């Protein structure tokens, strides 16, 4: 298997003017839905930054600014029964999978009504019904887990596929290697989307790996590798769709490298002092939302007004979602001690009982 470069993609030397390089079978409706999720992701994050500045967010905010097209475009290629394991910067995939923004806001504000009831943060929760396996912080770990999800699905005769997201940094972990290797041996329909956003925290890719393309790593697992322009939402969708079809029809695992860029620091507190200014400027011009808007309007798929209407609808929606999340109480303190085990109606013992007499 040789790495296949999906047409027109040459990041980081991506042509700034380039808009959507692939023929697509998407309907106009679908293309507008894609726009909805793309813009939703952007605006949810902006809202989060907003709440963060108001000190309403507990902990950090991890932006995917500039790389939203990757998460949304790839995830959009899945069917409802399919699964994802996103990372912090894949809010777009989580939203595309049907998780409501209120869940995200409640999580970030550590509220009782959040899906983890205040026990874990940001997108660290899951939803088995929606095919969303909640990640943990430890990078790489979700690859073996998703391998198990698909192994189970095969035993259960479900014809599903899954996407596991991984960063340029996370690919250096042992767990990534063990998981993808096992998936490849088992020919499981696992699509690994490698988000090549040029940094892992402060570490540039050349200190992370000696390969030229992350997709080159596919060869080490005997699986196909694709490279796609991660800022081109249609290309992300189409490439993933192709991988999904291949995987679902029994072809086995696929590695897709999406070339993109993390335009913010690792989190809001990170001043990015290690990033050259010009780099940021260059990638600002490649903004995936702008690009997609240009595409939609220039191809006559939508008018500027229609896009503005979608945006307005999202904004309104978000007001309600934030209001809902804000109205949630914080969790009751004693809840901290419950539900470690299935049968832990009673909290586990942890205080010196002997003194209580």
């Amino acid at each position, binding site marked *: 298997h040789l790495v296949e470069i999906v047409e027109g993609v040459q990041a980081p030397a991506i042509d700034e003017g380039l808009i959507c390089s692939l023929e697509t079978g998407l309907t106009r409706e679908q293309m507008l839905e894609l726009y909805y999720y793309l813009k939703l992701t952007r605006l949810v994050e902006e809202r989060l930054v907003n709440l963060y500045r108001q000190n309403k967010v507990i902990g950090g905010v991890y932006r995917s600014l500039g790389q939203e097209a990757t998460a949304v475009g790839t995830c959009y290629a899945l069917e409802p029964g399919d699964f994802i394991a996103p990372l912090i910067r894949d809010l777009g995939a989580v939203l595309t999978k049907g998780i409501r923004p209120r869940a995200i806001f409640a999580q970030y504000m550590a509220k009782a009504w959040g*899906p*983890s009831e205040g*026990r*874990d943060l940001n997108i*660290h*929760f*899951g939803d*088995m019904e929606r095919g969303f*396996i*909640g990640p*943990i*912080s*430890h990078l790489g*770990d979700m*690859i*073996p*887990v*998703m*391998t*198990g*999800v*698909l*192994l*189970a*699905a*095969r*035993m*259960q005769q479900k014809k599903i596929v899954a996407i596991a997201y991984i960063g340029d940094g996370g690919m250096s972990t*042992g*767990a990534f290697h*063990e*998981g993808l*290797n*096992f998936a490849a*041996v088992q020919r499981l329909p696992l699509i690994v989307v490698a988000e090549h956003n040029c940094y892992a925290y402060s570490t540039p890719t050349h200190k992370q790996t000696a390969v030229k393309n992350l997709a080159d790593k596919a060869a080490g697992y005997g699986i196909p590798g694709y490279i796609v322009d991660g800022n081109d939402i249609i290309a992300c969708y189409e490439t993933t769709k192709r991988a999904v079809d291949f995987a679902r029809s029994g072809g086995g695992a696929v590695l897709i490298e999406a070339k993109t860029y993390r335009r913010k620091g690792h989190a809001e507190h990170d001043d990015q002092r290690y990033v050259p200014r010009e780099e940021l400027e260059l990638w600002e011009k490649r903004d995936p939302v702008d690009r997609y808007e240009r595409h939609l309007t220039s191809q006559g798929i939508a008018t500027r007004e229609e896009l503005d209407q979608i945006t307005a609808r999202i904004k309104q929606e978000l007001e309600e979602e934030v209001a809902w999340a804000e109205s949630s109480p914080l969790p009751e303190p004693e809840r901290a001690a419950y*539900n*470690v*085990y*299935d*049968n832990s109606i009673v909290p*586990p*013992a942890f205080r*010196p*009982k*002997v003194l209580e007499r």
Partner: protein
Amino acid sequence: GGVVTFVEAIRQGIWEEMERDERVFVIGEDVGVYGGAFKVTDGLIDYFGPERVIDTPISEAAIVGAACGAALMGMRPVAEFQFIDFISCGFDMLTNFAAKCRYRWGAGIPAVFRGPCGAGVHAGPFHSQNVESFFMNTPGLKMVEPSNPYDAKGLIKAAIRDPDPVLFFEHKKLYRLPRLRQEIPEDDYIVEIGRARVAREGHDLSIITFGAQVLTALDAAEELEREGLDIEVIDLRTLLPLDRETILASVRKTSRALILHEAPRTGGIGGEIAGLIAEEAFEWLDAPVVRIGATDTPVPYSPPLEEYHLPQVKDVVDAARRLAAY
């Protein structure tokens, strides 16, 4: 059923659960055609097929991770570590993914992680370890270690049916020990997780132990009986969560506690048990709470070294005698 060895009891338990529940499957290195390094899964692949008896690459993190993923999907994986020493390579997955999933978002991981533990067979530092202390401070996990065929079968079945992740340790010295051969019921039974067993009743002193050291304790008790000492032996069976009531009841009865395990003394789970006793049975104590473990070293290979390293019957007899006379 029938008269079985320890290893056969575990094999039967897994077999019956696989038969009973099609969600149960086995995964690990060389568990298929080879039947596992200790033949615990021998014959399973012929009967249940390679879809349910899965040979993996040498990838403990992936084995644990895949078991977790499958468990989330409603399956009931039984994952094998070829030696429990290799659980160290799956440590992250167990403590961070498996243990915390239910707490974080309510998703249970009904998976069993099993493998041969323990020393005494001259297998050196990397094939002899007892690893329970690594996990004792990780809520969300359960730990089980049986000492006889009846319990082994009943506990492996209970572990497979348990809705949470269970680490199941099998002392390799017990697998084929003739002394342990035992008639077990034909009918389906389980041994409840979380319940210790009074392996021997006595009034003068409690030895609290588990796994292969139950035999050491029983041998010591028998020797001490000839001296007129009446020793109680508690076989913990479940290490996490500990059966606090059984431990405390025994110590409140005998007023003397000797804790025995095969792992090095310092940092072993004996500390937790001693802490429990010193707190909750304090008023019933007539003597210090005493712990016996292996030397605070890796497990050495050469027989004289390994013998010195491990607690021996004579060590237990000696300590128990002194403690009873305290």
